[in-house]
């Protein structure tokens, strides 16, 4: 049992030694690779601690001889030389490493090294050991948050070398985990550092290496320590920034409100334009009469209304009294209009468009007078109309036979202004006369409605010819209500007109013209009103 135990212990020891040796070899090769890059001289030497010193050189496998062929001698200043036992290691790329580990290490004194191969010096070097340190990387590198945004606290354990702590310098490398490009921060004689200016919520990679400051001790930068990955804290809202943002926003809102309030009228006009109201056009309509248009019309004169800009200029309102609705019979044949009358009709039609008021001006009246003097007024024609009217009254046409009143010609009823009484009578006969007489139309009746000129007017006081109005005949049929009335059929377009009362047919010769305001009440359905006008005969 005892022997077996001893054998096992020996085996374990050898294994550990082998492992340690392997580890040592691995570490040595790692440092050797650094020196092969950094040190141009041969042999390449470095000190890991205050008590060891290693020198080596590299040769190709093909050219290298056996280790026996080489000798490594060294001598400190003012001392005798010594020989170092060489070791051979195989490295990558078909190379051989010849290694010497000094037994006795002395610093702050010159060391002379000689390497011979078969008695021939191949390498020669004088150095100071305290200037060739190659330390191990710092251990236990720890990265933690400082509690502040964009900062990390890095700490490590410095190499354990007495008398050299204040001579060590460190480099801390940090970069984003997904990037190879980073930054390096240096620090001396301290084993802790705070990294600042880091991005929030970002994973960083941190590494540390060590070297000596070069004043008393010097050497090569160690290998980088194993990387440590840490994520920074998420972004926080700085209370100062939040408060400033709030204050600035509040000030901007106040400025906007002030601007809006100072221009609120302009903005309201643009966004919500006022609906135009006719208040200004209708005096007292809404203020006095509360919007009662009928009542307002009754209190105001027709001229005021007729002067309203809403009235189309083409429509010349004329005073007209509708006595009854008349159902129209088949179109009556009427004598052809005299040429002059046609011309007069045309002229009057044009004038009608010009007239925009209920009262003609003097000019138009003069024209009318001219027309009248051209032969419009024909007593024969007047009698013909009366006859026709009487005929109609005596034999009213059944409704079924009645057709739409159609008139293709424009009818004109005019009366002069400032006439004498005789003329006045004639005028009345002409225009009103006979109130129930239809004008015959030369053209065949059409099924569609036409606009006719309405006869008009007057006012006893002014004696002005009433304006001529045009009406549109809706396609309705109307019947006469009272044949005893002298009447005039008018197609009501819905425009309020001032109609003069029509005298009875019996009183045609004694027509008294007076003015009555006609309040236009829109019937449930439109009915055509026949405009009574005297036919115009041209004796010429």
């Amino acid at each position, binding site marked *: 049992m005892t022997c077996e135990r001893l054998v096992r212990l020996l085996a374990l020891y050898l294994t550990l030694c082998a492992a340690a040796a392997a580890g040592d070899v691995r570490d040595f090769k790692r440092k050797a690779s650094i020196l092969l890059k950094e040190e141009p001289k041969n042999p390449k030497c470095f000190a890991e601690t*205050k*008590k060891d010193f290693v020198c080596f050189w590299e040769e190709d496998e093909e050219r290298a001889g056996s280790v026996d062929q080489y000798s490594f001698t060294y001598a*400190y*200043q*003012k001392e005798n030389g010594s020989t170092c036992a060489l070791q051979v290691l195989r490295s990558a790329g078909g190379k051989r490493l010849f290694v010497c580990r000094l037994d*006795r*290490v*002395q*610093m*702050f*004194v*010159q060391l002379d090294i000689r390497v011979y191969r078969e008695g021939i010096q191949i390498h020669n070097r004088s150095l*100071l050991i*305290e200037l060739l340190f190659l330390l191990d990387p710092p251990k236990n590198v720890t990265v933690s948050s400082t509690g502040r945004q964009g900062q990390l606290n890095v700490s490590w354990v410095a190499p354990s070398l*007495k*008398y050299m702590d*204040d001579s060590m310098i460190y480099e801390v490398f940090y970069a984003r985990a997904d990037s190879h490009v980073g930054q390096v921060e240096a620090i001396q004689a301290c084993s802790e550092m705070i990294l600042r200016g880091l991005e929030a919520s970002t994973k960083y990679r941190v590494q540390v290496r060590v070297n000596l400051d070069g*004043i*008393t001790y010097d050497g090569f930068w160690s290998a980088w320590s194993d990387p440590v990955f840490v994520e920074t804290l998420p972004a926080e809202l700085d209370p100062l920034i939040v408060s400033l943002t709030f204050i600035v926003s509040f000030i901007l809102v106040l400025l906007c409100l002030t601007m809006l309030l100072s221009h609120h009228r302009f903005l309201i006009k643009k966004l919500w334009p006022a609906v135009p109201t006719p208040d200004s056009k209708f005096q007292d309509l809404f203020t006095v009469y509360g919007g009662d248009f009928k009542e307002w019309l009754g209190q105001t004169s027709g001229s005021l209304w007729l002067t309203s800009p809403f009235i189309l200029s083409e429509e010349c309102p004329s005073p007209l009294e509708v006595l009854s609705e008349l159902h129209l019979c088949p179109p009556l044949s009427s004598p052809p209009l005299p040429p002059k009358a046609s011309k007069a009709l045309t002229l009057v039609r044009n004038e009608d468009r010009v007239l925009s008021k209920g009262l003609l001006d003097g000019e138009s009246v003069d024209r009318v007078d001219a027309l009248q003097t051209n032969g419009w007024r024909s007593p024969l024609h007047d009698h013909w109309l009366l006859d026709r009217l009487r005929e109609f009254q005596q034999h009213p046409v059944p409704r079924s036979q009645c057709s739409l009143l159609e008139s293709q010609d424009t009818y004109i009823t005019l009366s002069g202004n400032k006439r004498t009484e005789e003329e006045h009578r004639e005028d009345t006969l002409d225009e009103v006369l006979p109130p129930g007489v239809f004008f015959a139309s030369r053209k065949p009746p059409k099924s569609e409605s036409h606009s006719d000129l309405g006869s008009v007017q007057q006012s006893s006081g002014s004696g002005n010819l009433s304006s001529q109005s045009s009406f549109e005949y809706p396609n309705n049929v109307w019947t006469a209500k009272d044949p005893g009335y002298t009447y005039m059929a008018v197609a009501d377009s819905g425009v309020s007109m001032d109609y003069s009362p029509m005298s009875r047919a019996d009183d045609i010769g004694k027509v008294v013209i007076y003015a009555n305001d006609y309040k236009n009440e829109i019937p449930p359905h439109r009915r055509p009103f026949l405009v009574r006008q005297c036919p115009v005969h041209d004796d010429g």
Partner: protein
Amino acid sequence: KIGFLWTRPGLPSPLRPICDLRVLNHFIQEARDAEVTMKSCREGCGLTEAVSVPQTTVNFDDWEKKNAMEQAQEVQTGLWLLQQALSLLRTSMTNSELNSHIDNVIRNLHSITAVLRSLNFQEYTPPASTVGPEGTWRVSTATELLQVHLNFLRGKVRLLLLDAQACQQEAS
């Protein structure tokens, strides 16, 4: 009647310990500059005779085995030897640039002595004989002299200051 008042000189006030090694580092830098300049000198920059200089070799195990007094004695002796050698070199120097370096180095040695005094190290008593005591080397060139001077400052002097008791008490 006349009365006399005798006064005696008072004891010097103790110096404040100088434990900041940056002072020594500055001296080391200037010593290195002098050595580099001396290496490039070809004429008018040699010793007329061999001089004794302190040994600069430091074996940390051996150094740690010595006590503070032995260490201080070794350093103070070395400083005295270097002052003697550098003063001799100064008299034989004709190079003006090197003369300024040598003057600076000698001045720094006196400053280091004062630093040691501030750390309560005993005053050094030079030996009666000019022959080099044990633990010294003989050098014959100015380059060697300045090299020894540099190594002595970087080694033993620095180690002594690092381990000075006065500095340990101040740090704690």
